[in-house]
């Protein structure tokens, strides 16, 4: 029996290893091992005051820290019955969109594109494709500028608080942001052309079961109250324990999930499959041009879906800036609230897919129970399933080629291993 082992998957966030066991032409076993150290967030949050929860939880992962921070704020507020103002909601959405642009750009330009051009990373690729990389970095920077303006820091924001924001952005700040966002939106046209010209490697796949939060409005978006599977099953976010099952893994520090034994995929490709028909403007045009086959059978299109979402996030950010430039910023502080006991369960769509936060508090606002489920953990069973399908259909290409294709496939899911192993579960 042949065994293909890769002890450190590169160009992903965190530490992961892959072992594929082959018996002739049969795939015996696929083990994806996320061996990032456990940072023990569970013992960290227990008993800590509610205001500290978002900044602590933010440290699960830097790349999507705004997503963790905002989702944690929403969970605290839901638990205590705190209703923030529409202005706060919009400003938070803006910070969230900045994260989407930054995270997707990092993945597409720095981690994925080098594969398609035959390079080991941006450093090598920049020697010949300096303009392409520089363009990608400019778009990424626009995302970070948004996060800095609203969050006070690009990674682990300091300005978002329970009930509102510490300091409000000024109109000149928003005007400048809008200009930068607009520049990036124009630059993304060249990116769409570049990506449209790439050949996405195929293998004999199967229809993928997708899952994503249904946006609250009829528009595309990342916030909502229910979670939809592509076969039509839909669950309220707070009934997540009924919508999929987590399993303990003997070999990985993350817990893979299935729905009744069936793997499912979350992330940009899932959102495009489920709600891509709601896109408008340049994002809609990009989707048409990039010709992502829907329903998708090939997870490698996730990076292409991320390109579409960068454009969506830029357009939506510009719309939010325009709203404030027309209506002005109300000089309001965080809303008044009463600290009280309760549980808040929230699902959002962060760059890599559905993120669940569930926190319970006692009357003094101290944490009594916590549960965080991250997209990378949700995706683990799907990655293993697709690796098996890929190995089965491409077994003849030789070990070196197979290794490359495996790594490329894992990377397409944009795993964030720091996130996945920092599961927090307290009864």
């Amino acid at each position: 029996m042949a065994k293909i082992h890769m002890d450190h998957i590169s160009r992903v966030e965190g530490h992961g290893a892959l072992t594929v066991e082959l018996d002739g032409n049969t795939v015996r076993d696929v083990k994806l091992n996320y061996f990032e150290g456990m940072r023990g967030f569970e013992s960290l949050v227990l008993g800590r005051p509610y205001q500290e929860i978002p900044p602590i939880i933010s440290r699960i992962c830097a790349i999507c820290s705004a997503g963790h921070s905002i989702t944690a704020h929403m969970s605290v507020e839901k638990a205590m019955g705190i209703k923030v103002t529409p202005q706060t909601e919009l400003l938070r959405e803006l910070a969230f969109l900045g994260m989407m642009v930054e995270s997707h750009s990092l993945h597409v330009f720095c981690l994925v594109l080098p594969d398609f051009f035959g390079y080991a990373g941006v450093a090598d690729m920049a020697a010949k494709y300096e303009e392409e990389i520089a363009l990608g970095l400019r778009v990424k920077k626009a995302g970070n500028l948004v996060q800095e303006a609203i969050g006070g820091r690009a990674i682990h924001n300091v300005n978002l608080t329970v009930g509102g924001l510490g300091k409000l952005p000024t109109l000149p700040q928003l005007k400048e942001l809008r200009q930068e966002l607009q520049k990036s939106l124009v630059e993304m046209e060249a990116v769409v052309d570049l990506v449209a010209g790439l050949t996405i490697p195929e293998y004999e796949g199967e229809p993928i079961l997708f899952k994503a939060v249904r946006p609250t409005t009829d528009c595309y978006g990342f916030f909502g109250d229910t979670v939809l599977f592509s076969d039509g099953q839909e669950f309220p976010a707070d009934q997540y324990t009924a919508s999929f099952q987590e399993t303990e893994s003997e070999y990985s520090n993350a817990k893979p999930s299935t729905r009744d034994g069936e793997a499912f995929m979350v992330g940009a490709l899932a959102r495009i499959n489920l709600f891509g028909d709601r896109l408008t403007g340049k994002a809609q045009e990009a989707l048409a041009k990039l010709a992502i086959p829907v329903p998708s059978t090939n997870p490698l299109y996730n990076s292409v879906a991320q390109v579409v979402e960068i454009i969506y996030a830029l357009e939506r950010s510009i719309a939010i800036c325009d709203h404030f430039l027309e209506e002005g910023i109300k000089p309001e502080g965080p809303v008044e609230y009463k600290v009280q006991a309760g549980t808040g369960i929230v699902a959002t769509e962060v760059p890599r897919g559905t993120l669940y936060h569930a926190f319970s508090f006692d009357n003094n606002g101290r944490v009594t129970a916590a549960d965080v489920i991250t997209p990378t953990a949700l995706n683990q069973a799907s990655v293993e399933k697709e690796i098996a399908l890929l190995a089965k259909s491409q077994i003849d290409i030789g070990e070196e080629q197979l290794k490359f294709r495996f790594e490329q496939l894992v990377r397409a899911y944009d795993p964030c291993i720091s996130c996945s192993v920092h599961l927090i579960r307290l009864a």
Partner: protein
Amino acid sequence: MSAKPRIGIYGLTSCAGDQLTLLNCEDELLAILDAVDLRSFVMAHSANPEGELDVAFVEGAVTQQSDLDLLTDVRSRAGLVIAIGTCAVWGGLPYLAGKGTAISQHIQVDFSIPGCPIEKSQLLNALSALLHGDLPLELPYPVCLECTIRENNCLLQRGEICCGSLTAGGCGARCPSHGVACMGCRGSALDPNYQSAQQILAKYGYTPEDILQRLALFSGEGFSKEGERVG
């Protein structure tokens, strides 16, 4: 030393925020990559020749055997080891969780850049000092100094547990400049002024434990029970 310094960038148990801070230097990244001989950066690069290094940057705390193995290996190959981020410098959140230790508990560290995450400016200054063959300078002042220069209203004086007088400067007093109390994410200042912070907060009914509990979030091994800097 080869013409370009041989650099390695490593993550132990971490959130990757300090490595990401380098990738967030969008305006400077290509110039940096050009000025150094990058021998290892697994987060961003596939082919990593490793081997002897002039400078290794290490992020994250030691929480498991594989962290320790990597750290020991890196130390044996590197001329200078630079700890980046509060997790690596003080143990950070993993220390509070009872699982992590600062890297200086295991190997000799030549320079530390604290922050959660580190500040771009400090990273770039360190890189340019190293490129000139110098060691970077440690910032001697606490967050309070930067806060006073910015003429912020003092939150401590209003009865909020602000850790600015106890925390290493360099962030430009980000939090108090947004009206939010400093949580001490950069770890202990060289000379923390604990007595005075405690006296002010006592007027508002806070106990020393309240302050130490807040400091414990990021400072890991950095404070004694008396609020003095350790290490």
